[in-house]
């Protein structure tokens, strides 16, 4: 019972840190996925007097992913009243060229402005439609969402830091006496701190395994998956290899750091 109590205090602190961290990872992935979705749906339309090759167009700005030439058929169809096919072909030749540009990622308003400027710098390009009003509103919403997530992350960081320091004080109190007694009988520093490091490594492992179990369950929960599907976001909630490795590494580093701080802060009783 006594031994379980010793372990629980650090395991609970580590659990809350790892849980918050994984939640933040999921939120971050969701934002990235949403950005990707926005980028796929967003494009810039360019009007040029002359035909521009895909290679030349992509070379104008590095944000451009692909170029698609828009056929003027739909416009001509609307005008198509009594014109014969010869005149239509002539009209097609005189009409400017329309291009739809897909971008590598969802750009910021500043990047949109630069792209427009770069495109208009090309002599043949006479018009660029960047749908900036729509874009700006969506981008601001995204920024707000990111801001809220950042505040959430900072709050977690502050709370967990306080938790760690609280834990540090408890550990210092708990282990100082034993370390001093061992020191009185000539135990070298590694032997005095061995119990502490063993405890922290075991606790880090237990906490990581518990979080692994919890998120494996969450990632396979139909209800959670349905919620994500409803908002049209498809993300990996928990990668059992990469995420577990990251959680284990963070837990190990934190607990070993905690143990090291105690060892360094240990003062022999006089």
């Amino acid at each position, binding site marked *: 019972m006594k031994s379980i109590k010793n372990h629980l205090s650090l395991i609970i602190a580590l659990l809350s840190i790892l849980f918050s961290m994984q939640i933040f990872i999921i939120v971050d992935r969701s934002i990235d996925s949403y950005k990707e979705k926005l980028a796929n749906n967003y494009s810039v339309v360019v009007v040029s007097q002359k035909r521009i090759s895909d290679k030349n167009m992509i070379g104008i700005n590095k944000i451009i992913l692909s170029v698609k030439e828009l056929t003027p058929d739909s416009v001509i169809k609307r005008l198509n009243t009594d014109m014969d096919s010869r005149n239509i072909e002539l009209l097609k030749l005189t009409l400017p060229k329309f291009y739809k540009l897909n971008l590598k990622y969802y750009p910021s308003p500043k990047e949109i402005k630069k792209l427009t400027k770069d495109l208009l710098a090309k002599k043949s390009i006479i018009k660029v439609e960047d749908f900036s009003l729509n874009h700006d509103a969506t981008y601001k919403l995204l920024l707000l969402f990111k801001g809220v997530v950042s505040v959430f992350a900072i709050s977690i960081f502050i709370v967990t830091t306080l938790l760690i320091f609280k834990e540090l004080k408890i550990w210092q109190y708990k282990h100082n*006496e*034993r370390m001093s007694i061992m*020191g*009185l*009988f*000539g135990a070298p*520093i590694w*032997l005095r701190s061995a119990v502490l490091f063993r405890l922290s490594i075991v606790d880090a492992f237990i906490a990581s395994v518990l979080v692994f179990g919890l998120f494996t369950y969450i990632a396979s929960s139909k209800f959670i998956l349905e919620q994500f599907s409803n908002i049209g976001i498809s993300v990996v909630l928990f990668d059992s290899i990469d995420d577990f490795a990251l959680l284990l590494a963070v837990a190990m580093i934190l607990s070993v750091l905690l143990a090291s701080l105690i060892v360094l802060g240990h003062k022999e*009783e*006089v």
Partner: protein
Amino acid sequence: MDKVIIAKDISLAYSNSETIINQANFSINSGSFVFITGASGSGKSTLLKSIYGALKPKQGSLIVGGVELKGVSGKKLNFLRRHIGIVFQDYKLVKEWTIEKNIMLPLIINGYEKGVTQNQVETLLKHVRLKHQAGKYPQELSGGEQQRVAMARALSHNPILILADEPTGNLDDYSSQLIWNLLEGANKQLKTTVIVVTHHIPQSMNIDYKHFHIEYGSIHEVN
């Protein structure tokens, strides 16, 4: 006869406080039994602390077991402490360990084999009449029993020197007598040097001993 402790002009003080022991000179032969007496606050425990290296001399030279303690390195101090057994008035047992493990501590630190450690602990538990309590934790024992555990721990690794700081201060007669018998036995049979800080020298001692008295910061031998 070899000297286990040689003190030359040592002055002892805690940081930012006045000098407690002032330019004292004394030496202790190997295998002797020594009592250190003095009024409360005279510096008896401070002197003992300096002998096990918890308080470095402010001035002078203090050599214990061949190790100069003024400016001693942590490694050398650990080496010296592995050959000393200490008994405190407040026992200083590790609360989260069983009494068996507490007694084992110096043996583990000194790298004894598991079999030897186990035998030694069993023998000592018999000597201190606590064999039936081996698996208990210190807080489950009485003060006298805890001090007997501390005594067994101090003896476990056959040290060259035993330091005892008022070892019977809070104990009942039975435990006190047991502690004195163990200290006498270690000195007589194992030729271990024993230094005891106490207010009163017990009348029942069947042993030749040296007596140092501390007064006004100086140490003098009482004949």
